[in-house]
C-alpha cells in the first residue's frame, strides 16, 4: 500500500478511531479505575467484594433468576413462531415480520408504562375484573410483573435472530430429512434446532443482557420495592452518591456480560444471528 493511500484511509477512519478510543475504551478504563479505587484514590478491592454483602448478593441473585426465567419464556414463545414464519410465503413474509418487529420501535418507556397501566391496582385488568363482579388481584409490584415486563420488552430481540437463521435453512434439507423417514418432531428436534444455534445464542444474549442489567422495568413494575442489581447500581450513581461502589458492582455485572459476548463469539462466528 502506498503512503498516499494509507493517509487517505487514516483520514477516512480517523474520526471513527477517535470515537472508539474516546467513546468506548477510555470510558471503560474509567469504570475500571473507579471500581478498583477508594475515595482517596488508593487501590482497593472492597467495591468489587461488596457484592458479597447480603443486600447486593440478593439483588444480583434475583436479577439472574428473573432474567433467566424471562429468557427461557422468550425462547419458548419465539421458537415456534420462527418455525411458523419460516414456512409462510415470500410476499406475506415481509408483512408478517413487520408486524412482529413493529412494537420494538415503539418507545421502550411507553411499552413498560403500558404494563403498569394494565396491572395497576386501579388499572385496566382490575377494572375489567371489577366490572365482571370478580375480586381484584394484586398484580403490580410482584416478581411476576417484572418478568412479564422483561418478556414483553425483549421478545422481539429473540424473534429477529431466530427468524433470520431459520429463513436461511434450505427447504431441501428438510425434504431430505423427511425422505429419509424423519417425523415432523424429528425434523424439528434434529434439523431445525441444531441449525438455528447461532440465532438461539444471539437471541438469548440479546434478551438476557438487557434483562439482567435493567433498572427501569424493576422500578416501574416492581414499585421500587424489588431491587435488582441494576437498581442498586443506578441508586449508587444518582441518589447514593458512592460512585466507587457503583462502579465496582458494575464490574461484577460485566463479568456476566463478557461471558455472554464470549458465547456469541464462539457460536455465531459469521454474525448470522445479527439483529439487522
Amino acid at each position: 500500500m502506498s503512503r498516499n493511500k494509507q493517509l487517505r484511509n487514516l483520514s477516512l477512519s480517523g474520526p471513527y478511531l477517535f470515537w472508539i478510543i474516546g467513546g468506548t475504551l477510555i470510558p471503560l478504563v474509567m469504570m475500571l479505575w473507579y471500581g478498583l479505587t477508594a475515595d482517596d484514590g488508593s487501590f482497593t478491592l472492597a467495591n468489587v467484594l461488596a457484592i458479597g454483602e447480603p443486600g447486593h448478593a440478593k439483588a444480583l441473585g434475583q436479577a439472574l433468576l428473573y432474567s433467566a426465567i424471562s429468557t427461557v419464556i422468550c425462547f419458548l414463545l419465539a421458537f415456534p413462531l420462527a418455525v411458523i414464519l419460516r414456512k409462510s410465503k415470500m410476499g406475506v413474509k415481509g408483512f408478517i415480520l413487520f408486524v412482529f418487529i413493529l412494537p420494538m420501535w415503539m418507545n421502550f418507556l411507553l411499552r413498560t408504562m403500558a404494563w403498569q397501566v394494565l396491572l395497576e391496582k386501579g388499572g385496566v385488568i382490575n377494572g375489567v375484573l371489577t366490572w365482571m363482579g370478580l375480586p381484584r388481584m394484586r398484580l403490580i409490584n410482584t416478581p411476576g410483573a417484572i418478568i412479564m415486563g422483561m418478556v414483553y420488552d425483549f421478545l422481539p430481540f429473540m424473534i429477529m435472530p431466530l427468524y433470520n437463521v431459520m429463513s436461511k435453512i434450505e427447504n431441501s434439507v428438510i425434504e431430505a430429512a423427511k425422505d429419509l423417514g424423519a417425523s415432523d418432531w424429528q425434523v424439528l428436534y434434529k434439523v431445525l434446532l441444531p441449525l438455528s444455534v447461532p440465532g438461539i445464542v444471539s437471541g438469548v444474549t440479546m434478551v438476557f443482557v438487557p434483562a439482567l442489567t435493567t433498572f427501569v422495568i424493576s422500578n416501574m413494575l416492581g414499585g421500587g420495592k424489588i431491587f435488582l442489581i441494576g437498581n442498586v447500581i443506578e441508586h449508587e450513581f444518582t441518589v447514593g452518591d458512592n460512585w466507587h461502589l457503583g462502579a465496582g458492582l458494575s464490574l461484577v455485572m460485566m463479568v456476566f456480560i463478557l461471558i455472554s459476548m464470549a458465547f456469541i463469539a464462539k457460536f455465531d462466528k459469521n454474525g448470522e444471528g445479527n439483529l439487522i
Partner: protein
Amino acid sequence: MKKTLNRIYLVLIIIFLYAPILTLMVLSFNNGRSMGKWTGFSLHWYAEMFEDENIMDALRNTLIIALIASVVSTIIGTAATVAIQRMKPRTRNILLGANNIPLLNADIVTGISLMLMFVAFGITLSMGTVILAHITFCIPYVILSVLPRAREIGSNSYEAALDLGATPMYAFFKVTLPELKPGIISGFLLAFTMSVDDFIVTHFTRGAGVNTLSTMIYGSVKIGIRPTIYALSTIVFLTVLVLLIVANVIPARAEKRRKEKDA
C-alpha cells in the same frame, strides 16, 4: 388442523404484543383520568398535550439530539466503513470487533462509563454530552448497515474510475457514495430511531433540567401518569408506524423499478 393451530398461535402472539399499546391508545380518548374506567370519548388530552410545556420541550430536545447524533454518526460511520473495507484483514477484524462492544454491552454500563469520563475530564453534563454519548452508540449501527452493501459492491468501479482519470476524491463522491446510498439511508434511519428510543444512556449523561421524551416519561411515572402521556404514546406509535412503512416501501419500490428497467 395444523394450519389452524399455527394461525391461532400467530394471533395470540400478536394480541400479546399489541394489546398493551392499544390499551394506551384507547385510554388517550377517555374523558376521565381513571385507568380502569371508561367515562366517555374525548379529545381534550390531545389538546392538553400540545399545550404542555414539559412535553413539547422534551419532544424538541429528543428531535434535536436524534437529528444531530444520527447525521454525525452517519458521516463518521460511512467514512469508517469505506476505510475499513480497504484495510488489511487483521486491522479490519480488530476494528469490527471494537465496533461490537457498544452493541453488545449493556446500556447501563455504556451510560455510566461515559458519564464517568465526562466528569473526569471536567466536562459539565448538558445536552451536548447527551449528543456525544448518542453519537457513540449510533456509529456501530451505521457501520453494520453500510458494511454489507460495501462488501457487495467491492472496489472495482472505484478503481475503474481512478483508471479513467478521476481523482480519489471525485471517485469517492461520484462512484462510491451513490453505490452505498441504500445502506447509508437505512443506517441513518436506524441511528435516528435508536437515539429517539434511548433512555438509559441519556439518563446518566444528561445535565440537570435536560429532558428527552424518555426521561420525561420516566419522571412522570414516579409522580403519577397523566393521560396526556397516553395521547403522546398514540402519536409516537402512529409516527413510528408511518416511518417504518415509508422506510420499507420506498426501497422495495426502487428495487422493483430497477428490476423493470433491467428487464
